[in-house]
């Protein structure tokens, strides 16, 4: 009896201990919950998977400098580059899911798994918001006879080989025109000529070595304005502000939109309320005059999607690129 009582006592003591520990945990959680209003409680880090000075890095730093005020904390940008962005995406996916580490997701996160470059996919992260979309533009030399995208497609249909310069095999600009060619049924007669970036591809069009180039509107803008390049179509839902006279592919009867996009993501287990807070203060930064001006001046297209829409969009893109990349047969190994 006595032993039992003692046992019971021990059990009770255990229960008490458990309760206390539980209480402490709850208190801690409560404390965390209480501090929710204070989130972010420390410095926020944005992981940029591309080199400093590039387009993605520039937009991220610009957004971060405004968001320091709207989010009320220090924001640092760190560049973790390599493997077509995979290093940075993976780092963002593996970070502490407390909202203090944000990843910068670019269109490549929906592509590289299909390309066989890395394992990471949009499934590994959670969307916070999209802030940019730069649709692909197809351009030809101004002294050629191709006056519309129709002219170019008809030439391909009649058996002529249309050589399209891009910034590399498996790049978004390659996939963009290849998808268009598939939609138009001329995939056989449009050849990708990969260069080391948009500039040499544009040079080859100007020099008459190839017929067309697929690049972002901002990348061809200088040569379009000087009258050397003629943009035939942009792959967006609406015309671009920087190329107002260029029709969309949809206007020309080809239902195909694609291009490069950029957005913010967090690790999968980040709590809803923190995602909301981040979305709110970064949206405020997105709306600021400073950010808007920067984007306009540098020709970056502004497009906003809230957290859930961006999440769904990344998944759709992942599906879509999977189909195109498979049909292009450019997967490594």
């Amino acid at each position, binding site marked *: 009896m006595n032993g039992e009582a003692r046992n019971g006592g021990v059990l009770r003591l255990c229960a008490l201990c458990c309760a206390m520990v539980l209480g402490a945990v709850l208190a801690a959680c409560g404390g965390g919950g209480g501090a929710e209003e204070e989130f972010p409680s420390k410095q926020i880090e944005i992981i940029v998977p591309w080199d*400093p*000075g590039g387009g993605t890095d520039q937009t991220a730093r610009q957004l971060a400098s405004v968001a320091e005020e709207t989010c009320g904390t220090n924001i640092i940008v760190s560049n973790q580059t*390599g*493997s077509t962005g995979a*290093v940075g995406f993976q780092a963002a996916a593996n970070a502490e899911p407390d909202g203090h580490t944000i990843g910068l997701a670019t269109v490549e996160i929906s592509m590289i798994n299909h*390309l066989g470059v890395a394992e990471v996919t949009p499934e590994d992260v959670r969307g916070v918001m999209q802030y940019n979309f730069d649709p692909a533009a197809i351009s030809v030399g101004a002294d050629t006879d191709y006056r519309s995208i129709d002219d170019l497609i008809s030439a391909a249909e009649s058996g002529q*080989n249309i*050589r399209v310069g891009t910034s*590399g*095999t*498996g790049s978004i600009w390659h996939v963009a025109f290849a998808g268009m060619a598939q939609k138009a049924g001329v995939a056989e007669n449009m*050849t*990708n*000529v*990969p*260069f*080391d970036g948009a*500039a*040499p591809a*544009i*040079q*080859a069009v*100007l*020099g*008459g*070595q*190839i017929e067309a180039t697929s690049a972002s509107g901002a990348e061809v*803008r*200088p*040569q379009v*304005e*000087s009258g*050397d390049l003629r943009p035939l179509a942009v792959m967006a839902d609406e015309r671009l502000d920087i190329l107002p006279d260029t029709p969309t592919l949809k206007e020309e009867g080809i239902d195909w939109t694609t291009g490069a996009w950029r957005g913010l993501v967090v690790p999968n287990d980040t709590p809803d309320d923190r995602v909301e807070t981040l979305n709110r203060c970064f949206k405020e930064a997105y709306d600021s005059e400073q950010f808007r001006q920067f984007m306009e*001046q*540098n020709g970056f297209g502004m497009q906003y999607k809230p957290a859930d829409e961006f999440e769904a969009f990344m998944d759709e893109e992942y599906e879509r690129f999977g189909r195109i990349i498979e049909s292009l047969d*450019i997967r*490594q190994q």
Partner: protein
Amino acid sequence: MIFVGLAVGLVVGALPGLTATMAVAVLLPFTFALEPVPGMMLLVGVYGGALYAGSIPAILINTPGTPSAAATLIDGHPMARRGEAGQALSISVVASAVGGMLGAVMLALFAPRLADFALSFGPAEYFMLAVFALTIIASLSEGMLVKGLISGFLGLGIATIGVDPIQAYPRFSFGNPQLGAGIEFIAVLIGLFGVAEALTQFERLRGGASMGTTLGSFRLDLGRLRRLLPTTLGSTLLGFFVGVLPGTGGDIGSFVAYNEARRFARGEKKFGRGDPRGVAAAESANNASTAGALVPMLTLGIPGDSVSAILIGAITVHGLRPGPQLFTGSPDLVYGIFIGFFLAYAILLVLGLAGIRLWAQMMRVPTRFLWPTVLVLSVVGSYALRTSAFDVFVMLLAGVLGYFMLKGGYPLAPLVIGIIVGPIAETGFRRAMIISGGSYEWLLQPIPLVLLALTVASLALSLLRSRRSGGDV
């Protein structure tokens, strides 16, 4: 502004591993606060200063401070070893300044007309230009052709490591992502020259022998200057035109100019053994090529090299766009750049001549202190490239390779040429084949045909000379 830029450039250029591209990229944000013209002057000053300063360590310690100075050391370092470091440094300053100033004049006079020349170079032309550049290997290794070729092929092989530039397939990466990202060329350069030289010096030190510490006279007499003039002018012209072609810069320009200077020079035997003309050719060409690189940037909005790619950013941030409309829209900026470029090199001449005595003190440092310092700088420099320990490893490996190549009498320059030119040749050839749909007809187009003829002539001449001099072919 130019002065500040030059000072920064001199330091950066003289330190192996820090490149002009890095310095310009780091300073870029500061120019946002400045007016466009002073901002550009600052960056142009850095660019010019760094390119010149790369020759200082090339001459004194046989380690190029920037890739463009790799051709300078072929004759620059033997001169220093012979006790003529002062002469070599003086020639390098003067040739750099002449190359840069004449380049700026040519830029101002011909920029719009040269746009077409740059555009006429498509993949086929780049391929044949690269093949022509590869013949330099043959002429650089006269008398030891087999060893030169082995060295050259080694360079070509190293350049293939990483993601293939056309199909994006990893080559020789063995599943290692760092190998997949490719070998950093500058790390190889630092190891090949800096570390290998340090190892050789240590060995020499243990053997008791030491390098001559006399610097010789810094003063260039008029007769020597006059003898160097034809080489300098010719090389300036060549360097400028190579620079105009987007994607080819001072590194290729200086090797091509060096080779031509040697081909046309009387007493070409002295080249490679400390001929002042070699230093003058390489330095005037690589500085002239920077002016050339601005041609496609200003006229077409297409960067001629990595530095001018960053300069485009410096222009666009002010709401200006590079391209033909820049000449009509904001002539003050365009002419500001021309004048700034010219002034930068004029000031460089003064600053450089005043400074050479200072740089030369490096030679006074006893060998047992100097070379450990070089080793430390090599490690720091190669780490700074991409903040990657892998690059340090590559650099050390290249150092060991360089050491054994030196011991075995294998020339190092062909390896460097292989690494620089290999990717241009490969991508050019493969793009030309894609564009032509698999036929070789592009070989018969005018420019490739001319380059092909030059290539054959250049090879034939090298073989003939080797045979005549009785060297083993």
